[in-house]
């Protein structure tokens, strides 16, 4: 019996470790409930700057490199350095501003909570009821 419980425990632990879940979060009042990777990319590249209700899309990024950021950018299909060059091009063309980068996920969560029209990403286990979850990104390891 103990062996069976231990087996199930280790399987569950292994499953947990093999997955990194990142939540795409937005301010509670944004006019959508879910978002595709293509739409998310349009927001993060600045191709789309307004929500359907004409409110500005305010994009937040995470400063430190880490698994959450890696999973998120992989989902977008661009590396962080490639995204930086996209933002630099927008900035130097007068077409938009790079997103504000937060030092921690907690800071990012609070910023999204208090900024109308904002969107960001944090680890799923950090999400609270004060923000809207538009997508959950799961990456299974190797």
């Amino acid at each position: 019996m103990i062996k069976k419980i231990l087996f199930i425990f280790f399987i569950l632990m292994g499953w947990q470790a093999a997955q990194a879940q990142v939540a795409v979060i937005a301010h509670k009042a944004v006019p959508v409930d879910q978002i595709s990777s293509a739409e998310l990319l349009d927001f993060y590249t600045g191709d789309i700057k307004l929500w359907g209700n004409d409110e500005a899309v305010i994009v937040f990024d995470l400063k430190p490199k880490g698994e959450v950021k890696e999973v998120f950018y992989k989902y977008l299909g661009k590396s962080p350095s490639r995204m930086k060059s996209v933002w630099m091009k927008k900035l130097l063309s007068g077409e938009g501003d790079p997103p504000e980068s937060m030092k921690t996920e907690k800071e990012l969560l609070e910023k999204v909570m208090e900024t109308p029209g904002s969107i960001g990403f944090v680890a799923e286990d950090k999400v609270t009821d004060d923000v809207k979850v538009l997508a959950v990104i799961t990456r299974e390891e190797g």
Partner: protein
Amino acid sequence: MKKFIFFGILSFLIIISSNVCAQSGEKPLRIFGYFQNEFSHFAGNAVHNDTRNTFNLQQMNVFFQKNISLKWSAFVNFEMVNNFSSSKQWGSAKLEEAWVKYDFGKAATLRAGLQIPTFNNLNAIKNRTPLLPYVVRPIVYEASFEEVVTLEEFVPGRAFLQLYGFMPIGKYKKFDYAVYLGNSPNINNFSTRGQTGVDTTNTFLVGGRVGLRVGDLKMGVSGTMDKTNLFTRITNFFNVPSLEPFEKRDRFRVGADLSFQNDMFMFEAEYIDVSYEEYSSDGLNANVIDRLEGFELDLAFYYATLGFYVKEPLLVYGTYWRSRTIEPYFLDLQRGFVDERERLNVPGFGFSYQLSDRVRLKAQYARVNVNVDIGGNMIKVDNTSNFYSAAASVFF
């Protein structure tokens, strides 16, 4: 028709400007820019066997940007090239852009004011040196060469009204478009005849680009139509009484571009062809014009660059440019004009290293071959030179 266009544009701007104050989103004025300093070494050639080394502040741009409201923003770009100094009369300084734009959403943005129009892949960002891996850009885009190369013959330099945007046509596919209006450049170079270079009395510059983006792949075709006074130097030389027939020759530019960039590779290629209305002596009694009839004037340029990211901040690339110019060449009063055919072949390679978010280091080698044939072997020049350059592009 022109009055209709003028009043149409004016009414449109008045209507949409009513939204300016009604929307939030105003942000403080931002001032930023960049400069690129280079060191170049010219290794000499058969004609000039002396080597030359030069430090050069190739370019500096200062931007002023202001989000006036959620949908309105303004942008001003001052550009200085080649160690600009008014006291020493070096280089040049100019107001490159000053525009206001209105975002209708993803489908359309309207820009009004002095701006660099969209043409192929590189034209609109040609002077943004921190974005480009080159020390010396493909020649028709190299602002620091404008004293020696007629850059604006190949690509449009400025427009005054541009509508652009994109339409999604699938999950990762987008249809891009841009249409613009501007002046035919330098129609008037004489201040005694009104404002110089800004005359739309006879014609506009009309142009645009349509393109497709599929993920990291981008392609498009571009075109412009305007009129040019390329031949005033000829009329001045011969003191031809009427300049008008030379000032209004139709000019057509056609371009195609293809580019791709991901985390491992970058590729970009462009083709540009410029053709001009043929000379005609109809209704004129000038012998000079008769002599020019039948001669060709045609410009073409293409370049391709293939780069590989050795490691994320380090890009190595190989590049090749080629230009072809065919124009009438004046030998002397007895023999008149003959065809001059000039070819420029520039293979090269280089690297760029993104030292930090704000500093990009660059190095480049170019082997420049100039081949000139005047009058079918009457005069021939075939000259090859080697250029080495290194630069730092700094964003501030």
